[in-house]
């Protein structure tokens, strides 16, 4: 138990550092801004108390906001995403349910399941985030393109990270 807490705390810190030091500096043609820190919310165990899930997501979003100088933007998007997570898990549940002792990862439930699960939540998160950032519908289509391109790139990194970094 203690070990698991340590593991997730480490993941929390690594993802924040990766987001701020590496992924925030990535930019292709102004359309793609990957936000990979949300991997933390995706990887939390199935059995996590739902209140704790919300609080962790809020803390994560708020820290990112603090560093990017965007009060409220990332925290609202991340909290909404965490709120939707239990529903999405039910929607994409395998026929015999989720097994005890497993995690929401490719290693346990396969690539197809993970992509469906992650893509839905990434899109919910990015959609909220990008529209809250511009706070207008002026460039609706343009923002939509930025959301789709960024979400695709974020998803790609999340899937790759499952093979390269978080194999266990």
């Amino acid at each position, binding site marked *: 138990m203690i070990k698991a807490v340590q593991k997730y705390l480490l993941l929390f810190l690594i993802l924040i550092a990766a987001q701020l*030091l590496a992924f925030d500096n990535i930019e292709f043609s102004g359309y793609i801004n990957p936000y990979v820190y949300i991997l933390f919310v995706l990887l939390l165990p199935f059995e996590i108390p739902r209140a704790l899930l919300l609080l962790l997501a809020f803390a994560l979003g708020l820290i990112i906001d603090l560093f990017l100088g965007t009060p409220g933007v990332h925290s609202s998007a991340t909290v909404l995403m965490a709120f939707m997570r239990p529903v999405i898990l039910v929607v994409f549940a395998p026929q015999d349910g989720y097994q005890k002792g497993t995690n929401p990862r490719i290693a346990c439930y396969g690539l197809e399941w993970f992509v469906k699960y992650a893509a839905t939540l990434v899109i919910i998160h990015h959609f909220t985030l990008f529209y809250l950032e511009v706070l207008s519908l002026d460039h609706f289509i343009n923002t939509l393109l930025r959301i789709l391109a960024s979400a695709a790139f974020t998803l790609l990194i999340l899937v790759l990270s499952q093979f390269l970094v978080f194999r266990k």
Partner: protein
Amino acid sequence: MRKLLRFLIQNHFIILFLLLESFSLFLLFSTNPYQKFAFYRFSHGIINHISTRISNLEDYLFLYRENKELLEENTKLYNQLASSYSGTTAKTADRLIQGSTDKYLYVSARIINNTVNNQYNYITINKGSRDLIEPEMAVICNDGIVGYTKAVSMNFTIVLPALNLDFIVSGKIKKNGYYGPVSWNGLNANIMTLVDIPHHVALNRGDTIITSGYGGIFPEGYLIGTVQDFRLKGGNYFEIDLTLSPDFRKLENVQVIRYHAKQELDSLQNSIRDD
């Protein structure tokens, strides 16, 4: 009471969600641009330390010393440029008031943090009030304008760059002198928009747009960009897309322009507004 308690426990997930979400949205909507900026400055005090170190390492890799020598040389030349001196009479007046003969002072600085992919981007540079930098000074690079200084601490300055929705500068068409506000619409890191140019003005793709000197921050004559595309808006005025001259993605060194008589100019202009 017990019913209420049970209700709260049963619905704690939704209630907590609503609480956290409304708190976040409250943060988002209740902060004005200045507070957002203060938020940014606070957090960047922490990051600047790390950024400086990373930046120092990069310098080592990219021949810091040679770069610095060139930069200082450049500053020296800028300060000697004829346009940095006022005319002879003004010179005496300047000397009496400021104890200096120069109209402008250029301070070279290096960028230690820069974003281009947000709607409200900011740049942090490694010079501050210790190097005579104050808020609202123009910042340029060799290719053209970069932005203006916004907040200054002893060793660092945060620059509000052209790529920020709050940025605005008065630009004019070099060949005929028509001027209007230039701003960024947040869509593309290379494109700025110039508006309020009357429809009878002859325009060509590739025309040069420079700063007009109005507004008090930017001196006249610095390059903003070139005309890429233009269209009539509402029938009477052109909306012009400019290709921004500097590439903000690879900015490294900038010059901050200190205009010695700025305070005098500002207080004179404000004295009329107050009446």
